[in-house]
C-alpha cells in the first residue's frame, strides 16, 4: 500500500474535464486506487469511477489523499498526484 496527500489547485476542482482526466488516468493502472477528502475521511471513493469521484465534491484548495494497492501502486499515486499538481492545464 502506498499513499500521498495533495492539494487541489485548479479552479474547477475534480469536476467536468479534470475529473474525467483524473479517472481516465487511474484506469490505466492495475492497482486498486482510492481517494478521499481529508476533511471527510469516512467517504472513500473508487478513483476509477467518475460517479464516485464526482460525488466527493472535491473543490479547489481541498486536500485529498490518494491510496493505491497493487503491483504499480507507487507509480499510480505519483502520477495521479502529479496530474493534480499540474492543475489539469486550467
Amino acid at each position, binding site marked *: 500500500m502506498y499513499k500521498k496527500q495533495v492539494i487541489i489547485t485548479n479552479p474547477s476542482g475534480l469536476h467536468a474535464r479534470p475529473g474525467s482526466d483524473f479517472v481516465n488516468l487511474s*484506469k490505466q493502472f492495475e492497482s486498486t486506487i482510492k481517494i478521499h477528502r481529508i476533511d471527510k475521511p469516512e467517504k472513500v471513493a473508487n478513483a476509477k469511477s467518475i*460517479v464516485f469521484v464526482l*460525488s466527493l465534491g472535491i473543490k479547489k484548495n481541498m486536500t485529498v489523499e490518494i491510496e493505491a494497492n497493487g503491483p504499480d501502486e507507487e507509480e499510480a499515486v505519483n502520477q495521479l498526484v502529479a496530474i493534480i499538481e499540474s492543475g489539469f492545464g486550467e
Partner: protein
Amino acid sequence: MKTLTKGQKVSQGIGIGKAYLYRHYEPRIVENFIDAQKAEDEIVAYQITKKRAMEEIQKIHDMLLDLNDEKAKIFKAHLDIVDDVAIDEEIAMHIKDSHYTYTYAIHLVYDMFIEMFSQVEDELIQERVADLKDVKLRLLRISDGVEESNLATFNEDKIVIANDLYPSDTATLNRRFVKGIITEVGGKTSHTAIIAKSYEIPAILGVSDAMIDIKDNDVIIVDAIKDIIVINPDESTLNTYRLIQQENLDQKEKIKKYLNKTSITKDNVKIDLSINVGSASQEELSFEPYVDGIGLFRTEFLYMESDTMPSEEKQFHVYKKALSHFKNKPVILRTLDIGGDKTLKYMALPKEDNPFLGKRAIRLCFDHLDMFKTQLRAALRASVFGNLWLMFPMVGSIDDILKLKILFNEVKQELDNENIAYHKDVKFGVMIEIPALIMIADMVCDLVDFASIGTNDLTQYLTAVDRMNQDIASYYQNYAPSVFRTIKIIADEFNQKHKPLSVCGELGGDLIGAPILAGLGIHKLSMNATSVAKIKQMLHHYTYDELKNMADQIIQFKSEQEIIDYVLKSHKEKGVNDV
C-alpha cells in the same frame, strides 16, 4: 393525399420533406425478477445495451465536434458515466444478488447515484444529475427496443413532427436538413416559434393530433403561408408547390436587396431598426452594418444554455463582445427574464398555477440578489466598451422602478469602492409589458431614460390571454385594436417628453404591425435579424404622412380583421413584397 388545416404558421415559407416523428421517450419501470441461474445472461444483456448506448453517444459527440459545437463536451461526460466501473459493478450485483432484471437494476443503481449527487452541496455536482438522468433514460429506451429520436443525425430533407420541442431538442437541431416544423402545441411566441423564425425554417404550430395524422416517412408539404399541411401529395400538387417554393425564394431575394439600404420612408424620415439577439454569436453580430443597434439582448439564453449559473467573468465577455462590436450604436441589454415559460436547469423554480403572473424576471431576481448583482456588475463592467442601455423586464409599479434604481446604484457604488471602471452614462430603462405602467405612463416616463414595449406580453396581459394555453389561442390577437390604442397612449407620453421609446416585440418586425407602430410615432423598432430587410423594403414604399394616416385610421377600427385587411390592401397598392 390528405390535407390538414389546423394550426397557425409562426415562420413563413414552404417546406417539403419526409416526416420525422419526434417523441420524448417515457420509460415504464417495473420491478421484475429473473431466474437465479440466468444472472450471467442478464449481465450480458446489460453489456449489450450499454455498448449500444455508447455507440449512440459517440455518434452525437463526434457530430457536435465536427460542427465545432461546445455541447460535445456534455456527451463526452455521458460517455464517462455510461462506462463507469462502479455503476457496472453495482448493476451486476443487483442482478446476481437480488435477481432483478437488468432494466430494473439500471433504474435502481442510477437513482442511487442521482440521490447521492443530489446530497452533495455543490452546484457543479447538481448539474451532473441531469447527465445521469439522460444516460439512464437512454439505457432504458434501448432496453425497451425504442429507436433513438434526435434532431441532429439526418441525411435527407425532413419535416419534424412533435408534440412540442424543448430548448434541449432544438439545441442539436440539424439546420441543413430540417425543412419544416410541425408541433401539436405552441403558438406564435413559443420557444419553437422563435427558433423556427431565426433559423428561417417554415413552421406551423398548434396542429392537434399531428402525431396521429402523420406517419414516419410520409412526404409532407408545410405550407406556412396559407396554413396548410399536405400529407403524401400527388405528383401535380408536389410540382405546384415546388414552383411556389421557387417563387418564394425569388421574392426573398428581392427583399434581401433592401438589407444594406438605410431604413427611411419614401420622404426620408428615419426609422431606427435594431435587432433582437440571444447570445452575441458571430452570426447575430454580422448584421451590425445594416442596423442601428441591438434593441433587445435577451440575456436569459446565456443562463438557459449553460449547465451552471454563468459567472460574472463569462457574462462580462459576452456583453463586451456585443458592445465593442456595435461601438457607438446602442445595445439594449435586458436583465434576466426567467420564469413563465422559461426555466433553468440548475435553479428550482416554484411550481405556480399562473407562472406568467408569478415570480418572473425581476420578481425572481429580487429574491436572488447575488445572481442579480452579478449580472449588473458584468454589464456595468462591459459598458466601457460601447453604448450600454440597461433594461428591466416585468416592471409593474413605481415601487419596482425605485427598488431597481437603489440596487443599480448599490452595484455602481461597489464598483467605485473596488476602483473598477464603468461608463457613467449607462441608460436606465424598463420594459413596457405590464399594462399598469401605461396607466401611470407620465410618472414612469419621468423616472426612466428610455422604455421598450414587449408587445407579446403586453397583449397577453392586456387581454388576459395566457399565450401558452392552446385552448384559448384564438383569443390571442396579434393586432388587437385595444393593443394599438394602448401603445398610442405611451407613445404620446414619451414623445411629448422626448424620451426614447421602442418596440422589441414580434409586432415590430411584422409587416402589419411595423407600419402602424411607425405611424403611431414610434421611431425605433427592434426585430429578428431576418425581418430587417423586409421592414426596410416596406418603409421605402410609404411616406411618413401615409404611415401616420394609416395609424389614424387603424385606431378607429373595431376588429383585428379590419386592421389586417386594411394594411394588406394598402401594401398591395404600394407594391410591398410579402414573404
